[in-house]
């Protein structure tokens, strides 16, 4: 059993899985149930001046039968009285002293920030998270992402909070910026003890085809919302890794965005996150998902021979480089295992229409002329098929083959193939050694 406990800039929790600020951490009763299920911490639904919410608030993108691949909301911060929230925070901390309770905050004036920081800490918060991220509603009032998009303002408000805060402060960033390093560096400069990201991506989830109303509808109207769920994970991973590899970011990172299981969390840890926060997956399946997250992470760390989750943090970062540093001499080609091929033809059509016309079949026309750089406009010729093993379905014509000479090693055929390990990308040995674009520029070759 690996050690899953973490210490995120002084906030300790028995495991790195926290509820993100949102509907699942709206009240004490919920957070206590989550802790009962095993969650290591919770970032309380953002507290601030009372607001009013609209009906409806949530929208989703379903994809090929999978529900809620993407998710968005136009809900605002807590709509419950501050007194009730503080009372419940106190009670949760009293009953679960070993779990991390971080309180998300949003305020306007320096005086308001002082008051809400002190009241949160009086209630027993282990840490604070500054919500500089919401891309809807609150930003129109000068809060949320309107702060996160202005590094100067972000740094200023962070420094206000640092004047009063006795507990560690996380600055939560919006992804709705050109370069995440700008607000990231500002958060560090303002004195923040940690950074959490991403908040939701500004979005419009869709249009109802019958009414042509934008979703989620409020009567016949709608507004931009915040996008989250599995669909945003790649966006979030890029931003987390971009901060993690920058020497100016000297504080720990709490990763947020599309985390649904332990595998997702491993990617975040490997790219530099110390804790991860989950919201959409809990909204979809409930708090119970944490059982597999803890169990799966434990088994993974054991298999990898890692004693603690800390051993994993940032392990993938050395491989995250600029494009100009990539090895231009690294060559791979696709290989099709004919014995596994089921003859769906997706590698053929995807390469033909969507890549470089290097997958061929024995039937039908071969559209590619090879040997000329502008292949596709030249007369069509057949590429002769290599001798292959008898495939599983016995129909040789159904098994495509690769023109290895022309294959650019792009991965597309492997990505579309529905059969595990049927198409693999294999390295071609070369003796030229590594050479990057930057190397070529340095040698005056380009």
């Amino acid at each position, binding site marked *: 059993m690996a050690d899953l406990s973490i210490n995120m800039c002084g906030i300790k929790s028995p495991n790195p899985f926290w509820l993100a600020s949102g509907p699942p951490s709206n009240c004490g009763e919920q957070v206590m149930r989550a802790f009962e299920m095993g969650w290591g911490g919770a970032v309380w639904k953002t507290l601030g001046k009372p607001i009013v919410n609209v009906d409806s608030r949530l929208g989703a993108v379903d994809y090929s*039968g999978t529900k809620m691949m993407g998710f968005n909301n136009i809900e605002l911060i807590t709509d419950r009285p501050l007194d009730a929230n503080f009372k419940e925070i106190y009670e949760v901390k009293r009953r679960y002293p070993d779990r991390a309770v971080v309180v998300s905050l949003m305020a306007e004036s320096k005086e308001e920030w002082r008051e809400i920081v002190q009241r949160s800490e009086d209630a027993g918060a282990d840490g604070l998270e500054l919500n500089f991220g919401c891309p809807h509603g609150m930003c129109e009032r000068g809060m949320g992402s309107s702060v996160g998009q202005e590094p100067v303002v972000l740094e200023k408000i962070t420094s206000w909070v640092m004047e009063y805060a006795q507990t560690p402060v996380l600055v939560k960033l919006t992804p709705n910026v050109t370069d995440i390093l700008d607000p990231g560096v500002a958060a560090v400069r303002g004195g923040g003890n940690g950074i959490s990201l991403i908040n939701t991506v500004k979005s419009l989830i869709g249009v109802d085809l019958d009414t042509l109303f934008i979703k989620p509808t409020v009567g016949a109207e709608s507004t931009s919302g915040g996008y989250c769920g599995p669909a945003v994970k790649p966006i979030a991973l890029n931003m987390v890794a971009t901060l993690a590899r920058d020497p100016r970011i000297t504080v720990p990172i709490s990763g947020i965005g599309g985390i649904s299981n332990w595998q997702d969390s491993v990617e975040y840890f490997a790219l530099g996150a110390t804790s991860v926060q989950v919201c959409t997956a809990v909204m979809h399946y409930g708090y119970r998902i944490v059982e597999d997250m803890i169990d799966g992470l434990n088994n993974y760390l054991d298999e990898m021979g890692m004693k603690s989750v800390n051993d994993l943090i940032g392990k993938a970062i050395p491989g995250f480089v600029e494009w100009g540093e990539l090895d231009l001499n690294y060559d791979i080609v696709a290989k099709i295992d004919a014995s596994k091929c089921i003859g769906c033809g997706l590698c053929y*059509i995807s390469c033909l229409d969507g890549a470089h016309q290097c997958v061929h079949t024995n039937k039908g026309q071969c559209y590619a002329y090879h040997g000329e750089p502008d292949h596709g406009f030249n007369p069509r010729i057949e590429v002769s098929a290599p001798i292959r093993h008898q495939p599983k379905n016995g129909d040789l014509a159904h098994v495509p083959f690769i023109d290895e000479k022309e294959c650019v090693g792009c991965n597309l055929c492997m990505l579309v193939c*529905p059969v595990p390990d049927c198409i693999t990308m294999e390295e071609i040995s070369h003796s030229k050694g590594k050479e990057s674009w930057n190397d070529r520029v340095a040698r005056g070759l380009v």
Partner: protein
Amino acid sequence: MTEKQELSTLLPSDRLETQFSDAKPPYTDLEAVIEANRCLNCYDAPCISACPTGIDIPIFIKKIASGNIRGSATTIFEANMLGSSTARVCPVEELCVGACVFNELNHKPIQIGFLQRYVTEKALEAEVRTGNRLFVPADVETGKKVALIGAGPASLACAAYLALEGVSPVIYEKDELPGGLNTTAVAPYKFQTDDCMKEVEWILQHGVRLHTGVKIGKDVEFRQLVQEYDAVFIGIGFGKDGRLKLPGSDGSGVWGALELIREIKNNPNFSLPVNLNSVLVIGGGNTAIDVARELAMLGIPNVNIVYRRTRSEMPGYQHELEGASKYGVRMMENVVPISIVRDGGVIRSLKVKSNQSGEVFELSCDWVVEAIGQESHAIAVSPDIAVDEMGRVIVDSGTYMTTHPNVYAGGDCINGGKEVVNAAADGREAAFAMLRSWGIKSRFIKDDGKI
């Protein structure tokens, strides 16, 4: 000669077939979308090659997934005007579903028959509801008339494609009910006659005329059709049940399989004797399996098939035999019937001989049903139409034209008895060949000549 357009009124109620429930009940919207989303959308998909009508199956399935019900049904009917019945009567396990690449992965193959039934039913319901037809006949006067003999799948398909391009098809049917084997023979747990009538009515709506109760050669002469019409299509199917004429056959209790199935499906006055306990079905084809299963499902305690060869040699599909075995039908292999033994006129047993030991023994039974194939009746149409040694009408493989100019043929009468979907493909190809010969372009044929 009567002309029928309101077919449902012709259909008697209280038919024995109405006691059968649907072996494959229709999908709900959710089931259809889940199944449609499972489809890999193969390129040059093997399911298409396996379909005699070549329906673009991945396309129609993806259209279900995207909610394009009308487009999906159109894709099906373009290739197969009998898309409604074939969705239910096709042996999909042997055709499209059997070719699905998921079989290679030991995954459950895509349930193409269920999806096709779902979307054709849904689209035709919408057509009735909105009045917005999937296919509107071309508003042209071609002046061409085609007589079609027999109102089975081949003629119906042929007539539909002709009518859509402004040709006037007239179908002559000897029976009171149109539909051919879809009406008289398809297993009632797959497809019943009322649904068959709906399909025929749908085809007729496109400008096809139907005369029932007209026998060619008796009520109307074949020569007369050839003279009066620009072309004639022969879609008369294969003939009556072939019979073994075993000693002891004379008397009650000996049936031809098609004869018995037709009683079950169409005759409201038919019922099984209450003391019927044991039936032996002779044969190894799908009709033998069908009639055995139907009798077993109707409550006959002992229904068994006797076949002269082995299970692995039988022409009937294994999945059908397995389906029948769930209702208690068993099969005895390697036995040849010799005679029917009667006691005072009542059947006591079937005397058989083992192919292996040569032993002769009796199998007790109340009824004997013979399912040994059909006899050809094509020769009866006209001596001018050449048939092969099996009695099948000889046609040109590209145009489906017989040896008689402007006379075409398709379906069981040219292939000796295949599937409904083969007949639908034949009828379509014959229609396209006629249109081509008159310089009329079918809307379903692209400039490259493909459908």
